[in-house]
Structure formats: structure tokens, C-alpha cells
């Protein structure tokens, strides 16, 4: 069931297009992330949904009802901010009770519901404290609780973990995802952090320059990017530039003459384009040839050991740099710098992309 639907929503400021015409549907209980760098239009999109920005064109529907012209306070949405936005003059109890008091809920009911959500965020003992007495992570959980408590149709989260340090951020990702799954909340999450998007989302909406580039599950976006931008924005990627060939099954011809086979046919035969393969799919290979694989030969520039994995940086004759990622093995001597290395990967792991 669709909880929120955007139809042809756009926003212009004079000649500047902050958000190009965009369509998006989020299902009930789904966790959808708007992913993009600053200026990508993700915050504009969020603010259009929240009602803080009126769209230039298009409609916003919540639960089938057109809310485009409703003021923010009548949309029954929730929003979590990067700086928590807890009311500093109220206790945690009063902060969480605030949206319920606005809705005229009885005192007994308020007490019960506030204590319930404090249990959900596992902070039942802090009801009488003031926001400034809590840590950043605790404040953000309270901020989420303040949304959950009045059961909004959708909770918008605007870079909620941006102010926290890395370790706490990872804990909070797990925590938020758990709360979201258990309470069946529909969530629209904004972040520029690709790992955050990959680890939490049911679906990711990749945005750049005011446009939605691709919508899909984390593995869709990671393994089947539709553009060079998507391929390079999410995770590490190896890009080989060349010209698409007519070879059966699809292929790309590199400047050096090697042919790289792709996972699928490409409609862009004869055009300049790229082949993309993820570092974890590229292996250091022996001399024995194998069917259905791609092979290139280059010179090892360096090997970087990152604990469990090691990245081998290999430079091809035309200057292209590829990374092959392997599990670190203590029982095997790493290749030497300057050594000629043969890299091999499956055709099925190779994506053809337009330039």
C-alpha cells in the first residue's frame, strides 16, 4: 500500500532548478533513503513533503489524499533533525508529550504513551531530565520517540546522525532500523553517507543536481548502477573506458585492443562508454585462461592492507587504474611493487554504462 506519492514535483527559484520533476512512491512500512551530496535536491524534496517549501509543480499525496496545499502542522508527519530540535525548556517527558498535548490527548493516555515510547528507545529513566543533560545519541533517540509517539503517517529524517561520531553513528543505524522495523513506521531518510544508505534502506533514491537518477534496493544500486555517477557514488568501482562492440552478449573494446565482455547486451553499440566492475569481484589470476572471464594485464602500483582485506592497485598500459580486492592471507607473500599482474573477473560482474 502506497503511503506517500510524489507526482511530477519540482521546485525552481527563478532560473535555478533546485528539484527537477520527480516521481516517487513509498510503501507503508518501507524505509526509503534519499541519497546525494549537498545540492543534489534531497533536502528540497524532503522540505516539499514536510510542507516547508511549496513545489513549483506537482502534487504530494499521503495515503491517497492530496496534501500539496496543506500547511505543515496539518499533514500529520514527523521529522527528525540533525541538531535534534528538542525544546530546551521542557523535560524529556514534556518534549515527547508536546505533540500529544497539541492533539488534545488526555493526561492519563499521555503518561502511558510517553512511557511506552521511552521503553521503545530503551531510555525509560530519563523522563524528568532536560535535553542538555543527555548525550547526542540519547537526544536523537528522544527526537525519534517524539515522532513515534503520535503515530504520524511518515517520519522524515534529515541527516539525523550527521552530528554524531562514527562509532555512535553505526550503533544508531542499527537502533533506528530496529525501531523502524518493529513498529512498522514508514520512513524517508536523507543522507549523504552511502554506507548509511546501504545498511539501512529498503530502497535508495539516488539524487544528483536536482534529479532522481535511480531508485532501487541497495544491492540494485550497488551491483546494477544505471549511470557512471551511480557506479562511482556508491562504493569503490573500477571503470574501463572504451567503445561498445557488437560482440554477442555485449562487450566493450578498450583502447589497447582488449575486449571486455559485459553481463548483458548493450543498446549503445559503437558508442564510447564504460565497463564497471567492483573491486571485490576482481581477482589476481594465474596464467591459465578461463572461459567467460575478462582479463587485463597491468603493473602493481601498491598493495594496501586494511586488516581483513587488501586492495591491490594495478595500472594498465593505457594508464587506467584498477583495484582488486582480496582477503588478506598471512600464508601468502603479497605481490611486489612493479610486478606484472594479471587481473581476472566474470563477465556477469561487468556492467556496461554510458559515458
Amino acid at each position, binding site marked *: 500500500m502506497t503511503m506517500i506519492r510524489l507526482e511530477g514535483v519540482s521546485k525552481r527559484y527563478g532560473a535555478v532548478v533546485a528539484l527537477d520533476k520527480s516521481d516517487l512512491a513509498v510503501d507503508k512500512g518501507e524505509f526509503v533513503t534519499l541519497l546525494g551530496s549537498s545540492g543534489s535536491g534531497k533536502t528540497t524534496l524532503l522540505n516539499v513533503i514536510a510542507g516547508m517549501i511549496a513545489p513549483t509543480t506537482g502534487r504530494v499525496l499521503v495515503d491517497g489524499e492530496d496534501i500539496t496545499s496543506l500547511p505543515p502542522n496539518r499533514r500529520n508527519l514527523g521529522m527528525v533533525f540533525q541538531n535534534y530540535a528538542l525544546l530546551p525548556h521542557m523535560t524529556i517527558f514534556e518534549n515527547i508529550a508536546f505533540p500529544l498535548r497539541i492533539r488534545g490527548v488526555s493526561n492519563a493516555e499521555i503518561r502511558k504513551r510517553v512511557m511506552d515510547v521511552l521503553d521503545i528507545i530503551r531510555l525509560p529513566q530519563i523522563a524528568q531530565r532536560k535535553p542538555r543533560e543527555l548525550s547526542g545519541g540519547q537526544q536523537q533517540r528522544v527526537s525519534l520517540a517524539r515522532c513515534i509517539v503520535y503515530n504520524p503517517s511518515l517520519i*522524515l529524517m534529515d541527516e539525523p546522525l550527521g552530528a554524531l561520531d562514527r562509532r555512535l553513528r553505526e550503533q544508531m543505524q542499527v537502533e533506528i532500523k530496529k525501531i523502524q522495523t518493529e513498529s512498522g513506521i514508514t520512513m524517508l531518510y536523507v543522507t549523504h553517507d552511502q554506507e548509511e544508505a546501504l545498511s539501512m534502506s529498503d530502497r535508495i533514491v539516488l539524487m544528483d543536481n536536482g534529479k532522481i537518477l535511480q531508485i532501487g534496493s541497495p544491492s540494485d544500486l550497488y551491483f546494477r548502477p544505471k549511470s557512471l555517477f551511480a557506479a562511482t557514488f556508491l562504493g569503490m568501482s573500477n571503470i574501463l573506458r572504451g567503445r561498445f562492440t557488437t560482440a554477442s552478449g555485449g562487450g566493450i573494446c578498450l583502447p589497447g585492443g582488449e575486449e571486455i565482455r559485459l553481463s548483458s547486451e548493450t543498446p549503445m553499440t559503437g558508442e564510447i562508454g564504460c565497463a564497471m566492475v567492483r573491486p571485490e569481484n576482481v581477482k589476481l589470476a594465474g596464467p591459465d585462461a578461463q572461459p567467460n572471464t575478462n582479463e587485463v594485464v597491468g603493473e602493481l602500483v601498491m598493495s594496501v592492507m586494511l586488516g581483513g582485506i587488501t586492495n591491490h592497485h594495478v595500472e594498465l598500459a593505457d594508464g587506467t587504474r584498477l583495484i582488486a580486492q582480496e582477503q588478506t592471507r598471512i600464508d601468502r607473500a603479497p605481490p611486489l611493487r612493479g610486478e606484472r599482474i594479471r587481473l581476472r573477473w566474470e563477465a556477469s560482474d561487468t556492467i556496461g554504462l554510458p559515458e
Partner: protein
Amino acid sequence: MGYVFLILPTLIVVPLSFNAGTELSFPPTSFSLAQYRTYFFESNWWEATVLSFWVGIATMMLSLVLGVPAAYALVRADFPGKKILTLFLLSPILVPVIVVALGVYLYFASIGIKGVALPIVLGHTLIAMPFVVITAMAGMQNVDRNLEVASQIMGAGRLLIFYKVTLPLLRPAIVAGALFSFLISFDEVVIAYFVGRAGFSTLPVKMFGSIQWEISPVIAAISTLLTLLSLGVCLLVAATAKDE
């Protein structure tokens, strides 16, 4: 040192106020509370004080009611001419008080605003409100806009947000503005002298008159009390500011 040099003549009234007798004399020759007794019980000084007090309270109220929403609008809203309007609202500070007083006097005379206190209150509000606007605008810098946005998305209307979110956060600024506007009115001579009616003087005006005609030593006692009042107000402002 320079500051001490400037402030010492003000403090000289303190020993003078404890001197007995019917004339101001320095150094004091005796110690008594006679001047204070006269002020509180044996003269019409108390009447002037009560008038000043109510004028001060009314000025404070009016300044807050006009100044706080004005400051809110000037900080939050975005409209053409905002800078000019700000300057206009603060202009009574820039104009010499005597000019304001003369303007207010001529204006009230021509439109016929009458009564004992009303003209003084209106005149004082003119010069006190800019201070409320300034303190409230400074206070607004500490009210995170996201708090209002968050409250609005939670379902609160504008009025509710103003009362439940903005005003409580502005409280230290409002308290400061209130105390200052009261004090400005309570101390003010020129406007009160111009628009006041004979026989109904505010305390500072009566003191001014008294210096001209009789130089009563009671003035020393009143001056001491006024200094204490100002000091108390400043300490109160500092205390509320620290509290938040």
C-alpha cells in the same frame, strides 16, 4: 580610575542622605534616618513615587506588547524594507531626548491626549520600546528556527508555537527588556516634565523641581534609593541571564 572618578560624585549622596538637618551639607555632621523618614511618611514625595511606579509599569507593559512581536517579526519574517523598518523602530534612541520630548508635547497638545499619566506613558514607551526591541532581537538569535519548524511539523499552529516555544525561550531577553524599560521610565525627567500636568509630578520631575526651589536634603535619600533600585535591577537581569 577614570570610571571611579566619574562615579564618585554619584556616591557622595549616600553619606549625605544619612545627615540630619534641613540642608544638604558635606561632610555630614551627624547620623540619622530623618531624611528617609521624611520621604516615606511626612511629605507628598510618596505620591510622586506611586505615580512614577505606575507610569513605569504601564510603560513596561506597552513596550513589551509592542516590542516583542515587532522583534519577532523583524528576525523571522523576510519582507522588503526590513532594515529600514528596524532603523525606524530604533530611531528614538538616536534622537536627543529633548527633541523627542518637544515633539511628543506638541503632538499630544494638538491631538488632545489628556490625563495625568497617559501622555507620560506614551512618551516613555517611545524611548523605552527600542530597548525591548533590541534585547528581544538579540534573544531571538538564541531561538533555533528548527525548534519552531519541528513544532509546526508536530502539529502546532503559529500562535501555539509562539506561546509554548518562542516566548519561553525568549524569557531571559523579555525579563531584561521589561526591567530596563521600567527603569528608563522611572528615571526619566525631560519627557515627564514636558507633558506632565502641574501638581502631578513623577518622582524625577519632583526632584528636579525641588533642586531648583528648595534643595531639600530628602533628595539625597531618594537618590540613594534610586541608585539601589538601578543596581538591584541590573543584578536581577544578570541573574536571569546566567540562569538560562
